[in-house]
C-alpha cells in the first residue's frame, strides 16, 4: 500500500488539491468542534464557579475574620480567585470603617504579598491582572511595586501601573507617578496619565506645583491640564504664573483652573487671557468668566462676544446668558458694539437657554418692566420675533400677552403685520381678536403721528 506522500506524488497537482481539500475539511471540523466544545466547557466552568462562590459567600465572615485559616483557601486557585475578587469588590464600595477589616484580611492572609509578588514577577496577562488588583487594594504598600512597573518596556504594563496608582488615589502614589514622569521620562499617552494624576492629587493639588515648575514643554501641558481640573483658591499665585506661560495649552489650563478655583486674582488674569493670541485660550477664558459669574466680567465677555472665532463667540454668549439679572444691560451694550454676529450669537443663546422667555415674563414686573422692554426691543431689532409672537398668541398669562402687544406696537416693525394678521385669523376669542386688530392698526399707522394709542382694547 503506497504511503500518503507517495500517493500525493502519484496524483500530481490533483494530489495537492486533494490534500488541500482534506486539510480544509479537517480545519472546518476542528473549528466547529472548538466552537461547540468551548461553549460547553465555559458553561460548565461558570456553573462550578458560581457554586463555589455561593459556598464562599456563606462563610465570608469567617474568612475575613481569619476563623477559617488562609492556608485552607490561599493555595486553591479557584477559591483564591473568588475570594480576591469578592474582597476587592467589597473594598471598592466600603466605608472607611468597613474597609479596615478587609485590608487586615488582605494583609494577614498573605494575599497582598502574593499579588505584589505576581506584579513583580509574572508576565503578560497575569501581570496585568496583578497590577490592576494592586490598584484596587488601595494600600500604600502597593505603591513601590507599581512604581517599578512604570519603567517596564511593555506600554500596556506601564499604562496599567499608572492606572493602578491612580486607583490607589493617594498623594504618595501621585508623587511616584510624577517622579517617574519628570525624572525617568515616562512615556504614557496623556489620557490615562492625567486621569491617574487627577485621582491622586485631587485631595492635595499643591503636590503638582513643584513638578510643574521642573517640567519640560512636553510634560507641562499634561500637568497643567490636571491642575485645571482640581486647582483650589489658595493656588492663586501659582495659577498667575501659569497664565503667563509661553505654551498656549498651559495658559488655557490656567484659565480653566481660574474658573474652577475662583481665586481673588482670577478676574485680572482672565482679562489678560481673554485677549490671548490663541483662540482656544480666549475660549477657555470666556468659559471661566462665565463660571466666575462676576458682573465685572461682563465687558470682557462682551468683547469676547465680538471675537473673530465663532466658538469663542458662542461660549461668551453662553457665559453672558448666565447673568440673568443683567440681561437688559447686556443686550444694550451688545447693541452699542454694532456687531451683528455678536448680537445673533447672544440672542440665539438667550432663546435656547430661556433668557428671552424670562425677559417676556418680566414685562409684567413693575421693577423690571422698563429694562425688559428695552432688551426685547433690541432683540426685535436684531430680527428675532418668533418667541414674542409665540408669547402674544399662546402665553398663559393674559397680562403678559397684553404687554407683548404693547411692546410690538411700539416697535414700528411693520414687517410683522402679515404674521399678526394670520394670528388674528386664528384667534379663538373676541378679546384676542380685538387685541390683534388693535396691534395691526398700530403697526400700520405707526408712522402717522397722533394716531397711535397706548391703550389696548382688552
Amino acid at each position: 500500500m503506497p504511503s500518503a506522500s507517495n500517493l500525493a506524488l502519484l496524483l500530481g497537482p490533483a494530489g495537492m488539491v486533494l490534500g488541500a481539500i482534506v486539510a480544509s475539511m479537517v480545519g472546518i471540523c476542528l473549528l466547529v468542534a472548538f466552537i461547540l466544545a468551548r461553549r460547553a466547557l465555559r458553561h460548565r466552568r461558570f456553573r462550578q464557579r458560581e457554586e463555589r462562590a455561593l459556598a464562599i459567600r456563606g462563610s465570608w465572615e469567617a474568612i475575613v475574620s481569619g476563623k477559617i485559616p488562609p492556608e485552607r483557601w490561599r493555595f486553591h486557585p479557584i477559591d483564591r480567585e473568588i475570594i480576591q475578587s469578592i474582597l476587592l469588590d467589597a473594598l471598592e464600595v466600603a466605608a472607611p470603617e468597613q474597609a479596615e477589616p478587609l485590608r487586615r484580611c488582605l494583609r494577614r492572609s498573605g494575599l497582598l504579598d502574593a499579588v505584589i509578588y505576581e506584579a513583580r514577577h509574572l508576565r503578560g496577562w497575569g501581570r496585568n491582572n496583578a497590577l490592576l488588583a494592586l490598584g484596587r487594594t488601595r494600600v500604600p504598600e502597593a505603591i513601590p511595586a507599581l512604581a517599578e512597573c512604570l519603567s517596564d518596556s511593555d506600554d500596556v504594563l506601564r499604562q496599567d501601573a499608572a492606572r493602578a496608582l491612580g486607583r490607589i488615589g493617594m498623594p504618595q502614589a501621585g508623587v511616584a507617578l510624577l517622579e517617574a514622569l519628570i525624572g525617568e521620562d515616562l512615556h504614557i499617552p496623556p489620557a490615562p496619565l492625567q486621569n491617574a494624576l487627577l485621582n491622586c492629587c485631587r485631595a492635595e493639588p499643591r503636590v503638582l506645583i513643584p513638578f510643574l515648575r521642573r517640567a519640560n514643554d512636553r510634560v507641562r501641558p499634561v500637568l497643567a491640564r490636571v491642575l485645571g481640573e482640581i486647582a483650589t483658591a489658595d493656588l492663586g499665585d501659582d495659577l498667575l504664573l501659569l497664565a503667563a506661560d509661553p505654551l498656549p495649552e498651559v495658559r488655557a489650563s490656567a484659565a480653566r483652573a481660574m474658573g474652577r478655583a475662583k481665586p481673588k486674582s482670577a478676574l485680572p488674569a482672565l482679562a489678560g487671557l481673554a485677549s490671548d493670541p490663541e483662540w482656544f485660550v480666549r475660549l477657555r477664558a470666556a468659559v471661566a468668566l462665565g463660571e466666575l459669574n462676576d458682573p465685572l466680567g461682563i465687558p470682557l465677555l462682551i468683547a469676547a462676544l465680538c471675537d473673530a472665532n465663532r466658538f469663542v463667540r458662542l461660549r461668551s454668549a453662553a457665559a453672558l446668558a448666565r447673568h440673568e439679572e443683567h440681561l437688559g444691560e447686556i443686550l444694550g451694550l451688545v447693541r452699542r458694539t454694532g456687531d451683528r454676529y455678536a448680537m445673533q450669537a447672544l440672542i440665539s443663546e438667550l432663546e435656547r437657554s430661556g433668557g428671552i422667555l424670562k425677559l417676556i415674563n418680566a414685562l409684567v414686573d413693575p421693577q423690571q418692566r422698563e429694562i425688559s422692554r428695552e432688551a426685547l426691543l433690541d432683540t426685535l431689532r436684531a430680527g428675532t420675533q418668533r418667541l414674542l409672537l409665540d408669547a402674544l398668541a399662546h402665553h398663559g398669562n393674559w397680562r403678559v400677552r397684553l404687554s407683548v402687544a404693547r411692546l410690538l406696537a411700539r416697535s414700528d416693525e411693520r414687517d410683522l403685520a402679515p404674521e399678526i394678521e394670520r394670528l388674528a385669523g386664528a384667534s379663538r376669542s373676541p378679546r384676542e381678536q380685538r387685541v390683534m386688530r388693535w396691534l395691526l392698526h398700530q403697526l400700520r399707522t405707526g408712522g402717522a403721528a397722533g394716531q397711535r394709542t397706548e391703550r389696548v382694547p382688552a
Partner: protein
Amino acid sequence: MIFHFLTTSNHVLFVYYLISNFVYLFLLILAFFSSAHHQRRRASTRLERLKASPLAPPIALLVPAHNEEKTIVPSVRSLLLLDYPELEVVVVNDGSTDDTLPALIRSFRLLRTDLLYVSEVPTATVRGVYMSQIEPRLLVVDKEPGGSKADAVNAALNAASSPFICVVDADAILERDALLRIMAPVLTDTRPIVAAGGIVRVVNGSRIEAGELRSVRLPRRPVEILQVIEYLRAFLIGREGWAHFNMLMIISGAFGVFRRDLVRKVGGYRANALGEDLDLVTRLHRYLREQKSDYHISFVPDPVCWTEVPSNLRSLGRQRARWQKGLLDVLWKNRDMLFRPRYGRIGFLAMPYHWIFELLAPVIELLGYSTIIIAAIVGVLSREFFLQFLLFGYAFATMISIGSVLQEEITYRRYNDWRDVAKLLLFCFLEHFPYRQLQMIWRLQGFWQFLRGDVSWGKMDRVGFEPRPARN
C-alpha cells in the same frame, strides 16, 4: 492556440484564487492575535472611569438624514443617551421630502436660530440651523438636497465644534457604550491615532425598543443571515488584519471616529464620491503620507453599531452595485498612488490588493467560470481536477467563514443563543451557491453602470426600527 489560452488562463486563475484565499487565511490568523492584544488592552481600561473623566475629548456625532422619518427620532434619542461625557449631536436634514424635519422639531422642541454657520467645507445651501430647547447638545442643520450623503456630512462638519467627529447613519443604532469603547483605545494608544472604525453589525431580527437594542438575535431570512456572516468576515478578519499594518482603506460610513481638524484639512468628504467613506480614508492616507506624518488609522472591534441591512434581493443588489461603483470611483481617482514610493505600503500593497482582489474580483470570477467550463467541455481541463478544485474552493472559503464565526465566538459573543450559533455555522456552508454568484452579478452590474455614467445611489427599502416582537 485556444487550448493554450485556456490552459494558461486556468493556471492564472488557480494562482489568483490561491493568493486571494491565503491572504484571507493570513488575515484570519493575524486577526486572532490582534484581537487578543486588543482584549488585553481593553481589560485594563475601565469604561466607567473614562465616562466620568472630565478629560475625555468632546465628540460630535454627525448624522446625515434624508427621508428618515421612520427612524430619525428614535435614532437621535438613542444617540443622546450614549455614555460619553462630552457629546454633541449634529443632525443634517438633507432636503428630505418627508416629515424628517417636522418630526425632529416636534420631538425635540427645536427653535430656528440665527446661529452663525460658517461654510468652511462647501455644501449645498443651508436653509437654517435649529437648536433644541430641551436638549442643548442637539443641533439640527436643514439644507437643500446635496445629492449625496457626503454633502450632508460636510454640512454637519461645518457646524460641529468638537475635536473628534463620528459619522453615524441615521438608521443605525449605537450601543450605549460604543463611543467609550472606540475612544478608549484612541486615547490610550501610544501611536497617534487619527481615525478609528468600529464594527457594524446586522440589526435585522434583533429586538429594539425606544431606539435601543434590547436583545440580539439572528435575522430570519436567509439573505439577511448571509449578510451577518459577510459582515463578521469583513470586519473581524479583513479590517482587523489590514488595520494591524496601518493599511486600513475603509472606515464604515455607518460608524467611525475621525480627528475633525484633519478631515477639514483634506477638504471634508468628497461630495460627489459614491463611496465617501472609502474616499475619505484614502485621502487621509494620501495627505498624511505626503506630509510624512506619523499616524495610525485603526480598527476597534468591540464598539458596535447596529444597522439594518437589505432584506430582499433587489435592495441588496442595488446596494452591492453601489458599493462596487464607489470602489471603482475611489480607486480610479487615486490611481496615481499605485506603486509610488511616497505612499509606502498603501501604494505598494493596500491599493494593488483592492484593485486586484476587490475591484476586479467579479470580472476575474466571471472569466474564471467561463474559461473553466469551456476548458472542461473541450477537454483541456481534467474533470476530476476541476471538481476537486471546486471542492477545495468551497471547503477553504467555508473554513474562512467559520473562522470569522469563531473569532466572534471567542471574543465578542453577541449571539448568545445556541440556535443562532448553529444557524450561523450552517449558513457558512450555504453561502457559496448561489449567493456568491449573485454577488458577482450585482457587482458586475455596478461596474457596467459606472462605465455607462450611471452614478445614482438607488433606493433601499427600509422596515424601520419599530418595536418588533421578540422570538423565544
